């Protein structure tokens, strides 16, 4: 078990390293750096101004060196700019042109320094913490709606395969899964939030939900994400349930005269939930994906929105921070699902 965990953590670090390097390389392509300079300086900067801007702020160094500085395995740059100001990666603008004696020379992820976001003018660590917190709130409510809803639909549909209940619930699940968030979100806003349709039950914008989530401003974003995942999990649960219901021991139980509710609750449910459990855990990475669309659509400024802003503005260090967090979320949920599987199904052993 310990070896299994170690191997998993090793994979996780290696994946994070590869992914961040790719992101680093892409964000440091010349046109992206030019965009960055124009965002930061002035959109009308000349090519010379762009070059000196990049030179003075360490962007003109070789790529592997810059990456090593970001990781914290190479000392941060100290560059005297063409305007005479001395800037350093770790200590900002130096007043008298020299590094103080006690100044840090390494400042990378390994030292716990996630860098500085050029768009938001704030530390990457604190931005990601705030935004992840907001997305956490959204995800929590999505899970609260999605998991019980999906399991109930799946179990009800799967316990009598082919029945009328099964057919209608399956149709609903297929429809919700087949409707991506960017379609259902727009439809929901049009139907439930706009004056055009007349029903103004909810708000079409979730901006105020960041501070104070209410039924009006949080329902639509939560439902948009939840419905999509719900259909998928319900289909899995139904399949699993249907399979279990045809197993020998269920037939034996029925022949013994056990009542149908008892069969479902006591005999079938636990076995039928093994497959959905994995699917639910795998929904976490999917949710990260879904929040990108939903947060942008409803203007809810969480992690997904941050990702869009960081990518759109070529905010190198923020984008790297977001990538690292995403890798960890994906791989940790997979790890939990693997371990949880062992407990749910004693026939499987991870060692």
């Amino acid at each position, binding site marked *: 078990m310990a070896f299994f965990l170690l191997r998993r953590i090793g994979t996780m670090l290696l994946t994070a390293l590869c992914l961040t390097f790719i992101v680093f390389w892409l964000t440091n392509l010349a*046109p992206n750096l030019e965009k960055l300079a124009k965002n930061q300086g002035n959109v*009308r900067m000349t090519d010379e101004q762009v070059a000196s801007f990049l030179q003075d702020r360490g962007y003109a160094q070789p790529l592997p060196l810059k990456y090593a500085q970001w990781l914290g395995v190479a000392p941060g740059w100290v560059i005297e700019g063409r305007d005479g100001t001395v800037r350093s990666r770790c200590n900002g603008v130096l007043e008298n042109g020299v590094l103080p004696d006690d100044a840090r020379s390494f400042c990378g992820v390994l030292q716990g320094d996630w860098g500085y976001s050029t*768009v*938001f*003018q704030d530390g990457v660590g604190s931005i990601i913490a705030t935004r992840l917190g907001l997305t956490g709130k959204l995800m929590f409510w999505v899970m609260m709606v999605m998991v019980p809803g999906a399991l109930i639909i799946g179990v009800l549909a799967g316990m009598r395969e082919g029945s009328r209940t099964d057919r209608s619930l399956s149709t609903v699940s297929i429809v919700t899964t087949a409707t991506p968030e960017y379609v259902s979100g727009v439809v929901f806003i049009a139907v439930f939030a706009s004056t055009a349709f007349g029903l103004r039950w909810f708000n*079409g*914008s979730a901006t105020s939900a960041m501070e104070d989530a209410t039924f009006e401003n949080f329902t639509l974003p939560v439902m948009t994400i939840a419905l999509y995942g719900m259909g998928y999990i319900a289909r899995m649960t139904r399949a699993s349930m249907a399979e279990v219901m045809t197993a020998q021991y269920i037939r034996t139980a029925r022949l013994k005269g056990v009542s149908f509710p008892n069969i479902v609750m006591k005999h079938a449910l636990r076995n039928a939930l093994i497959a959905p459990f994995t699917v639910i855990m795998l929904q976490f990475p999917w949710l990260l994906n879904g929040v990108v669309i939903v947060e942008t659509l409803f203007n809810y400024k969480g992690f997904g929105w941050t990702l869009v802003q960081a990518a*759109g503005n070529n905010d190198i260090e923020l984008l790297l921070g977001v990538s690292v967090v995403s890798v960890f979320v994906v791989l940790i949920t997979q790890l939990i699902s693997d371990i949880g599987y062992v407990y749910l199904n004693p026939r499987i052993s991870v060692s």
Partner: protein
Amino acid sequence: MTHTTQTKTLHPAAKLYAEEYKAGLMDRREFLTRATSMGVTAAAAYGMIGLAQPVQAQTANIQQGGTLRIQTLVKAMKDPRAYDWSEIGNQSRGFLEYLIEYQNDGSFRGMLLESWEVSEDAKTYTLNVRPGVTWNNGDPFTAADVARNITGWCDSAMEGNSMSARMGGLIDSNTGQARDGAIEVVDDLTVRLNLTAPDIAIIANMSDYPSAIVHESYDGGDVYANGIGTGPFRPVSIEVGVKAVIERATDHTWWGTEVLGGPYLDRIEFIDYGTDPASWLAAAESGEVDLLYESVGDFIDILDAIGWVKTETVTAATLVHRFNQQTEVDGRVPYADRNVRVALAMMVDNAVCLELGYNGRGQVAENHHVCPIHPAYADIGPAPFDPAAGKAMLDGTDFADYEHELITLDDDWERNTGASVRAQIADAGVNIKHTVLPGSTFWNDWTKFPFSATTWNHRPLDVQVLSLAYRSGEAWNESGYANPEFDALMADALSIADADKRREVMAKVQQTLRDDGVMIQPFWRSLYNHHNGNVVNAEKHPSHEFHLYKFGFAA
């Protein structure tokens, strides 16, 4: 409202303008713009033409206090001189004030300057600092502060400083800094500017958003962090892309309370809803905001329909489809040839673009970037429209079979206008495609695009945009236009303070721009915003300014 006297002696040109106004040679707005930029107060200017100044602020019906929530982009703060978005200026306008304020009616009003006088040759400006103004840390505001800020504007070595291009007459071209003796502190309340060449746009330039006045302790970077200003509000917090908040500075006595009235609000929140107008609408419908920064395109009608109140201002804001005359495409420079440019311009009927691209909400423009509401606009007639002649002209060049590519931003009306331009050129039998780029890609390389559309904001004087955008080698020259003849005409125009005399030169300037086929400029836009009906004094401003001290809720 009380008004201070700006000058004892009226500028002779102002008297001439008044006569012209009375003779019906110019409209009220033109008269006000011209007369006030010569140092006459708005009240005096109205007096000269026998009108009473309209009461601008409905002071009686405003309630004191309240939190106003405004939908607007929230951009990262930077040194004011490098401001490149009107929104950034608005974020700091509550605490960083300006020497001069440009009013909705086209006139200029002294803010931190009580008055100013312009010499007849427009080379010497005497600026009278308003007495009794203090910074919110208690320091008095004096002529030294004014001189220090103007000196800062002249620093052309600073990356992204857009003020230096507008202070040409004060800058020593060898050092790129303010010339010795150009900015003179006469006494505690008087500053004199000695220009090398006449410049009639100085006062107008001092009202533009990068010219916010900062405290001596400010040393670059985020002005919210410094927080010292003369205005009635104080910065509280800013989260870029999310929200910025300012609050009434209760411990600070604002000079304007006596002079202008206000401020009325306790707290102002700028909330970012991104660039999609659908999100702005959602915010309005959900009641999450009280006021929109700007309403655009089809959303103007939709916002009307949900019962929000519309305000409108006619402006010289526009969309220019400019050719870059220096950009190479596959080894050739398609738009270096004047005939190619003129031919394409002749294929486009500007009125069609206004109708299809902007729902007719504006005025047809004439391909020379001078608007009828500008003081020295010369009427040289509509732009020629003759697709057949254009096609014949294009066939005579080396680029008859060339596939043109028009690039526009992915923005409702810019895209639609671009599409109407493309369609008309294609109808004339020319090979052309339309590429729509999202903002993140467009702004990367936009100045180099061979043929693309750029939005321009309204500026009060005719010469302002032209000198920024079309003179050879200027920072904002994105058309690659370099014509010594045009530069000479502009130098001429910039030295004539009197708009009537300048009009003769402007006629040539406008004709030159059109004859050289520098741009296809279809229309002048009217600008709109909407509020929920409870907000007062928040009418759309031609330069997108929020005069926050005036804003309030109806009592």
